[in-house]
C-alpha cells in the first residue's frame, strides 16, 4: 500500500533502536508547522507498535505505514 503524499520533512532513523526513533520523531514533530507531513524511515520493529499510540497522544495524524523488506516508512501529519 503506497502512500501518495509528498513529505515536507524526511527523517532517516535506519539503524536506531528503541527509544531513539520515538524521541527523534517527537522532537521533529514539535518543530514542524501544522499541516506539514513528516516521513520517518526506520528499521526498528518496536516502533511500528508504539508509534500509533504516541502520535495519537500528540494529537497528530498517522497517515499510514509502508513496509518493505524490514524498512518501515511512517507518514505523519502534524495537526
Amino acid at each position, binding site marked *: 500500500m503506497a502512500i501518495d503524499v509528498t513529505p515536507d520533512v524526511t527523517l532517516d532513523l535506519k*539503524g536506531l533502536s528503541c*527509544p531513539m526513533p520515538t*524521541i527523534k520523531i517527537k522532537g521533529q514533530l514539535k518543530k514542524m508547522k501544522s499541516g506539514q507531513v513528516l516521513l520517518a524511515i526506520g528499521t526498528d520493529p518496536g516502533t511500528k507498535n508504539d508509534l500509533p499510540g504516541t502520535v495519537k497522544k500528540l494529537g497528530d495524524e498517522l497517515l499510514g505505514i509502508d513496509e518493505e523488506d524490514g524498512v518501515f516508512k511512517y507518514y505523519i501529519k502534524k495537526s
Partner: protein
Amino acid sequence: MAAMSLSGLYMGVGIIIGLILALKYTMWEIEHIPSNILSAGINLPSPPTAWKKTQPYLGWILLILILFMPVIYGKHVKLGILATITLLSGFVMHRARFCFARTFRDPFMTGESWPTQSVILSILVVVLGVSILKWLGIVPWHRYVFPTGIWITIIGGIIFGFGMILAGGCGSGTLWRVGEGQIKLIAAMITMALSNALTKPWLWSKIIARKNVTFNYLPGHESLGWTGAFIIMIGVMLIWYFFVLWNEDSEKFVVI
C-alpha cells in the same frame, strides 16, 4: 518490590531519577551528535526466501518440543516443567512486546500510562501471591530481601535506570530482544551478566558482614507487621498509578 522489601521501593526511586537523566542525555545526544554516527551499525542482508518459508514449520516443531519439555528432561521433571513455564512466558512476553523499561520510561517520554498501569496491576498480583507464600511459611521470609542500605540502592537504581534507557531494555525486555536478534542488547546482556557475576560475591561479603537484613523486610518491623506492610506497598502502588494517570493528562513531567 513484591517480596515486601524496602530496597525495592528505593530502587524504584533510583530508576526513575536515572531514566530522567538518560532521557535528557539522549536529547542532548540527538542535538549534538550527527545522525550518521548515532546510527552507525552493521546492516546484515535479508535472509533468503527459502529460510523465510521454512521458519514457520521450525516454529511449530519448537512449540511441540517446548510442551514436551518435562518428558525430554527425563528424570529431572522439575527442571523440565520450569523450562516449559519459562519458555512459554518468554513467548508471551515477546508477542506482547512487554517491556519493563517502558513502564518507567513512558510517562516521562510520551506521557502514555498504559504500560505502567499494567505493570502496577501485575505487581499487586505478585505482592499478593508472595505474601501468601511467605505468610504461610512456604517460602522463607528472607527470599529476595537483600540487606542493602538506602543510598547504595538508590545510586544503583540511578545507574540501572540510566543504562536501561540507553541500552533499550530492562531485564525481561533484553532477553526477548536478544531472541529477536538485536545486537545492541546481546552486548547489554553479556555485560549485565558479567558485571553481576564479577561484583556480587565481593559486595555480598562486604554487606552481609555488616548490615542487619531484617530492616529491609517490611512485615518484619514491629510497628508495621503485615497490615502496615500491605498499606505501604499498596499505597505506593496507588500513588504511582494516580501519578501516571494525572501525568498523562497534564504532561507536566514529560521530559521530551
